């Protein structure tokens, strides 16, 4: 699962390209899937190769769960093709507000409920303090059961 930020042109083009290639790997290999770290390395490699030709202006967070190793992984990547595995990550202006909350509240062995509460705390902080905060956030989770949407936010037209 990737969370991406950047101009929509590159964002959509890049994410479609990655999604298609990950799917192609599965089709070519009898359904074998790429692990989270393999996907992250592939994404970073794609960004790196394009960097000196026509860079993709996308910053992203890539998260996944590997059923075989029973491990979750989160990777921070930016448009310059730097990559680092992280316990928590933020892209964009939100980092000014949210990184300190994560620094304070994140600890080893959080449950999913605790994790979602921290995310909600971050969203609240943005809505209180960030001048150009957007009203809607989608919250998604990936675990051994796969990817699912926890919260879809409200349509401003309905409010």
């Amino acid at each position, binding site marked *: 699962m990737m969370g991406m930020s950047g101009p929509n042109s590159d964002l959509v083009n890049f994410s479609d390209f990655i999604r298609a290639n990950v799917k192609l790997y599965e089709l*070519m*290999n*009898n359904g*074998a899937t*790429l*692990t989270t*770290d*393999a*996907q*992250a*390395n*592939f994404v970073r*490699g794609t960004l790196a190769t394009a960097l000196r030709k026509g860079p993709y202006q996308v910053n992203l967070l890539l998260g996944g769960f590997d059923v*075989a*190793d029973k491990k979750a992984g989160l990777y921070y990547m930016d448009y310059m093709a730097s990559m680092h595995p992280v316990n928590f990550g933020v892209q964009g202006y939100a980092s000014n507000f949210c990184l300190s909350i994560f620094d304070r509240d994140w600890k080893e062995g959080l449950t999913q409920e605790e994790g979602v509460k921290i995310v909600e705390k971050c969203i609240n902080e943005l809505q209180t303090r960030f001048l150009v905060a957007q009203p809607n956030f989608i919250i998604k989770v990936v675990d051994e059961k796969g990817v699912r949407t926890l919260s879809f936010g409200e349509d401003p037209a309905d409010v």
Partner: protein
Amino acid sequence: MFRNQYDTDVTVWSPEGRLLQVEYAMESVKQGSAVVGLRSSKSTVLGALKRSVNELSSHQKKLMVIDSHKVEYAMESVKQGSAVVGLRSSKSTVLGALKRSVNELSSHQKKLMVIDSHMAIGIAGLTADARSIAKWMRSECLNHKYVYGTQMPTSKVVKDLADKHQRTTQTYVRRPYGVGLLVASVDRGVPALFQTCPSGNIYEFYATAIGARSQGGKTYLEKHYESFGTEDDDNLIMHALRALGACVSGDQELTEENGSIALVTSNGMQVLEGANLRPYLERLEAEGGGSTTEGDATNETKDEAEPMEE
């Protein structure tokens, strides 16, 4: 069927206006085991009778693979090579190989090759062809690490290897690779053993043997394979040596010069040759012999080692 001057090339018409190579290829379909298909207004069903080489191998997947009979001669080349055995426990995979030397003054030809930190192969047949394949496999594994940052899954290498073999069976200007491989690996804790053959078919095994006199090895492995799952690495090596011992010719014996073992575990790989094999061979002697064939025993080992019992 007819054997005449119009049936060698696929681009040649016979005087009757037939393409005989195409018709011969159609014979190949009749040799394969049955596949049936039927449909309703909403769905289609395919059913296939899978064949397995013997009870130790997986059943050949039918709904994608085409058997080729064109490469029987190339497969003979594998049978001429000296024996390689492979077996696995629930944690590790072991390969054993009998190395040949041209004469007393020459070295013994190495038969076990390391592909990656989690994968090794044992070869039987044309060594030059095997080295070419090994070079390709190493390149594929390294490229995977470069792009994806992780070890290449063995199933992927082996599948691509099968395609590589198959291409040679369907081109006029190329010949099949005259070598069979046993591919041993441990993929993130899961051991695997595959056999390749010049036809492009790939089989997965609990245990198997290929090469000259490999039937003796297969017999031993068939007898004992059910106990391999829980064996520790040293015992697994002993099983490999016993299976290898069953493949020696009448006047030959398993020694530290002509034996070799590769052990692949989740922590890495070890290739045992020469003096490193000695403790295992000594254990084999203590049990009562490294060869199960009848015949004269020639003492080819160093002075300290005792002759193998026949």
